[in-house]
C-alpha cells in the first residue's frame, strides 16, 4: 500500500534546543493514529511540520508522494491547537469562507453537524463559549473531504456528551481511504477509535504500535500504558 504520510529522519531545533530528534513516521491510508505524549514532548511541533507551518532542520516529509507545499495542504485538513477565527464572523460566514478556500469542503455535512450539536450558525463567534467555538472549528475541519486529517487536541474543551458525538462523527465521516492523526491527552475517551498509537517523549518516538497489540501483549489499555511509561516521580 502506498504511504499517505512519510516523515523521514526529521529533526527540528529552535536554536540550541532540539525539540524533535530523528523522527520516522509512516502513515497508511484508512487508519486512525493517536499521537500521544506528555506536555513538551514535541507533538504540536511535529504537527506544525506536517502542515508546513514550520520547516524541519533536517529530514523530509512527504504527503501522498509530494513534499510540503500547496498540494500537501490541499490534501490535509488541519485543526490547530488554537482558535484563530475572527470574533466578528458568524458560523455561516466561516462556512462560506471555508468553501471558498477548499474545493473539498462539504457544506451540507457542516450544517448537519451544527444542527446535531445545536449550534446556531447565525450567531457571531464572540457570543459563543470556548467549547462551542472548538466544536465549530472541528466541524469545519471535518467537513472537508480530505485525505489526511490532522487534529491537534480536538476535544480538550468539549463536554463528554459532545465528545462522544464528535468521535462518532469522526468515525462515520472519514473516507475509507483517508487517515486521521490525532494528538490528545484524553486517551481513555479516544482509545476505542484508534488503530495505532505513537508515543513521543522528549522529541523521540518511544513506542509505535497497534492498540489491540498493546492490549493483547500488555493486558492493559493504552491509557494505563501511557501512565506507566510517562510516570512522573
Amino acid at each position, binding site marked *: 500500500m502506498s504511504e499517505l504520510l512519510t516523515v523521514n529522519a526529521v529533526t527540528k531545533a529552535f536554536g540550541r534546543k532540539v525539540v524533535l530528534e530523528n523522527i520516522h513516521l509512516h502513515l497508511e491510508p484508512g487508519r486512525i493514529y493517536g499521537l500521544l505524549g506528555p506536555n513538551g514532548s514535541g507533538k504540536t511541533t511535529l504537527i506544525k511540520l506536517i502542515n508546513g507551518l514550520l520547516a524541519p532542520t533536517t529530514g523530509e516529509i512527504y504527503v501522498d508522494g509530494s513534499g510540503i507545499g500547496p498540494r500537501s495542504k490541499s490534501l490535509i485538513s488541519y485543526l490547530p491547537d488554537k482558535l484563530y477565527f475572527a470574533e466578528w464572523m458568524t458560523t455561516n460566514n466561516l462556512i462560506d469562507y471555508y468553501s471558498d478556500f477548499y474545493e473539498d469542503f462539504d457544506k451540507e455535512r457542516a450544517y448537519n453537524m451544527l444542527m446535531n450539536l445545536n449550534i446556531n450558525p447565525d450567531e457571531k463567534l464572540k457570543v459563543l463559549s470556548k467549547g462551542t467555538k472548538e466544536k465549530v472549528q472541528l466541524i469545519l475541519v471535518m467537513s472537508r473531504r480530505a485525505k489526511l486529517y490532522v487534529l491537534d487536541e480536538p476535544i480538550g474543551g468539549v463536554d463528554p456528551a459532545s465528545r462522544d458525538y464528535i468521535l462518532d462523527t469522526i*468515525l462515520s465521516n472519514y473516507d475509507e481511504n483517508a487517515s486521521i492523526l490525532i494528538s490528545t491527552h484524553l486517551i481513555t475517551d479516544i482509545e*476505542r477509535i484508534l488503530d495505532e498509537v505513537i508515543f513521543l517523549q522528549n522529541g523521540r518516538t518511544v513506542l509505535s504500535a497497534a492498540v489491540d*497489540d498493546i*492490549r493483547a501483549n500488555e493486558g*492493559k489499555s493504552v491509557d494505563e500504558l501511557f501512565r506507566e511509561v510517562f510516570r512522573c516521580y
Partner: protein
Amino acid sequence: MAWKIDNDRPVYLQLMEHIKMQIATGELSAGDRVPPVRVLAAEAGVNPNTMQKALQGLEREGLMYSNRTEGRFISAETNVNQVSTSYARELTVDYYGNMKGLGLNDQEIVKTLEDYIEESGG
C-alpha cells in the same frame, strides 16, 4: 444489547464475543445479513478497521461468510446451540479460573454455584 468495551483486552476480541452472544441469543440468526462494517462500527463506537478484523475472525471461525456482491451473512450451518455451548464453555473457563484464583477447591466451587442457584430460585 449495548456494546460494552473493557479496557484490558483487545477490542476486536470483545466485538467477536458480543456478536457471538447476539447469535447465541437469536438476535442474529442463520441467513441474516450482517449490517455493513461502518454501520456496526458506528453503533459500537469503534474504529471500522477493528470491526472489520472482528468480522473476519468470525468468518474464519465459520460463523459468517461473505458474498462479494451482497455482503456478509450468518452461516446457515451456524447452529445456535453450538454457539451458545461454546460460549457457555468460554464463560465457564473464566469462572472456574477466577474461583481457582480465589483459592477454592473443586468441591467448594460446585457448592458455591449450587448454593447460588438455589438462592436465586433457579
